[in-house]
């Protein structure tokens, strides 16, 4: 069968199935289970209305349970057990965790993740705020914003490929096809294999994510800046504030809630960072991060125990930030 046809059929079956589920389940509830007639009509209506919310919730609860809640429990179990040769499991306690902590690659991944955690959200938010402020109320601001926002539409892997080309290295004397090396050479420098320079190559990888996330930060912060009452800015002008004081003492404090939401949202993305590292260095040259470490252990080394243990570590790190993020986002909405 033609794949396009398959796609269309999938969509029809999926959407049609949803509609059919909601229609027939409600029909069953109202006509068969608790029909609104007979001596108990009133009681039946009340009961049907008690059940109805669950009809609507059920598919989502099932899907989330199957794909989110159950895997968490299963991962926890896997991280506490060892697979026996020939099938079966044995209880391992925290053995996988201690093995993981002893692994220098894990330490490296943890350190690099922390580095990402401090640098990427800070720079993305800062650049986003800067772009939002500089493009505010300028004729060509919308164009500039679209260009800055565009990387958001590129997948992480796609962006990684683009930047791999930017950092590309050719031996000295050859034509440099990487933009960065081309610039360095044209300025009289020696070409460098950027992605193999330990420690600094982390920052070259981070540049990719910053490039993507700046657009996100800019769009949200730009909307927040628009929401600041113009009169407070004018009052500050009358009070004698210079443009920097207006920005830092009047505007930024008023959108602090939004800045926190943007910051924490990017932090969560950063904690889960995988694609960029996977596609550009695969954790070589001391660029390992937790998610890629987990992938290495789980699917390359087939060490389900240590792989699951590192997955639990990532989850533990993300959870508090997620809670904080949701709390702030709700506060902003109020």
């Amino acid at each position, binding site marked *: 069968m033609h794949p396009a046809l398959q796609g269309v059929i999938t969509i029809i079956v999926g959407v049609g199935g949803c509609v059919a589920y909601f229609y027939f389940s409600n029909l069953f509830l109202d006509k068969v289970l608790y029909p609104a007639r007979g001596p108990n009509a009133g009681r039946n209506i009340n009961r049907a209305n008690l059940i109805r919310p669950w009809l609507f919730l059920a598919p989502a609860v099932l899907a989330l349970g199957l794909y989110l809640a159950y895997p968490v429990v299963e991962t926890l179990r896997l991280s506490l057990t060892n697979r026996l040769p020939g099938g079966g499991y044995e209880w391992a306690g925290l053995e996988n965790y201690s093995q993981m902590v002893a692994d220098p690659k894990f330490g490296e991944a943890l350190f690099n993740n922390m580095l990402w955690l401090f640098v990427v959200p800070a720079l993305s938010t800062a650049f986003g705020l800067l772009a939002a402020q500089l493009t505010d109320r300028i004729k060509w601001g919308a164009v500039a914003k679209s260009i800055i926002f565009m990387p958001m539409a590129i997948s992480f892997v796609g962006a990684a490929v683009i930047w791999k080309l930017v950092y590309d290295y050719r031996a000295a004397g050859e034509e440099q096809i990487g933009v960065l090396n081309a610039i360095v050479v044209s300025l009289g420098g020696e070409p460098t294999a950027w992605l193999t320079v330990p420690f600094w190559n982390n920052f070259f990888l981070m540049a990719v994510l910053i490039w993507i996330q700046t657009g996100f930060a800019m769009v949200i912060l730009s909307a927040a800046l628009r929401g600041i*009452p113009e*009169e*407070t800015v004018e009052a500050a002008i009358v009070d*004698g504030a210079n443009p920097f004081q207006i920005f830092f003492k009047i505007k930024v404090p008023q959108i602090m809630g939004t800045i926190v939401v943007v910051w924490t949202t990017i932090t969560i993305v950063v904690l889960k960072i995988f694609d960029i590292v996977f596609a550009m260095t695969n954790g070589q040259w001391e660029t390992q991060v937790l998610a890629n470490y987990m992938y290495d252990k789980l699917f390359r080394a087939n060490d389900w125990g240590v792989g699951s243990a590192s997955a639990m570590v990532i989850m533990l790190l993300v959870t508090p930030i997620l809670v904080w993020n949701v709390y702030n986002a709700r506060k902003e909405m109020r």
Partner: protein
Amino acid sequence: MAELKLTDVAKTYGGTVDVLKNINLDIEQGELIVFVGPSGCGKSTLLRMIAGLEKITGGTLEIDGQVVNDVPPSERGIAMVFQSYALYPHMTVRENMSFALKLAKKSQSEIDAAVNAAAKKLQLEPYLDRLPKALSGGQRQRVAIGRSIVRDPKVYLFDEPLSNLDAALRVATRIEIAQLKEAMPESTMIYVTHDQVEAMTLASRIVVLANKGIAQVGTPLDLYERPENEFVAQFIGSPAMNLLRGVVVETGERTGVTVGDGGGMIWSDVPTTGEDLNREVNVGIRPEDMLPTEDENYAFEGTVDITEALGEVTQLYFAAPKMDEDTDTVIAKLPGVVRDMRGKTVRLTAAPEKVHLFAEGRSLLYR
């Protein structure tokens, strides 16, 4: 502490759209000037030009003899109270009030003294450590005023400061502003409003703005008793002054006019000369000056269409006047309660000193 002098001040947007032109105005120290006018007349724009928030595109603005067209707002010696209060929402009342002084690098003791004095004056002491969102509308407005006071400006600018308050609070705050002005007789204030009552009660002089310019400048009662043109005559006072068509039939110290096809002649205290004989004029009589009469010489005769009994007065709205189709509805305001007027035909006249005469829109008093 300051005199303002506006000379040929103009505001043009994009080089083509005139908003204001030929604004000439002298404001003396200690005056409370109120700008009034219909919406869109440019009164707020003019205030913002004085503040320095809008560029002056023509003419000069002097404060204390110094041209300040290109002086930034903070160095003009002005302070502004905004319609929406414009308090900094992330700062406490104390921080809001001290912000300008901090920017001016005043010492902490100076700042504290100024803020405490202003807070005392405005009864804001219990709220100094609160955020604006924890204050009522009236309290916020007082903080906004306090923020101006601490800067000790030469000129206070108020941009419709009461329009966000409810009716009761508006009256109370209006009185507070009047008392504040009395407590600071040296300071000059400019106040923008569309509310006539605020203008009449607060102003030492009112500036009526209309048609991109100044329609009249004068004390509140000047504007009421001796309007320079039909616009001011109808803008000041509520309901608006009735304008009736008439012809001058006798000239001299007093003027006799016949009104519409009405009955006979009424007198006005406005003096005229022989040249004015047979001149077509608009006869202006305020609703509250209309008197019922049985005399053959009356200003207006009509059938009462609607009555509004307000207790202290009764307002009579007359059906389409029999003389002229494009004349506005004529309104009379009679003192006390007058019952059973609807559908009745009434004759009205007015005392000679209450009858205004306008030709080509301008009052014959000002020639």
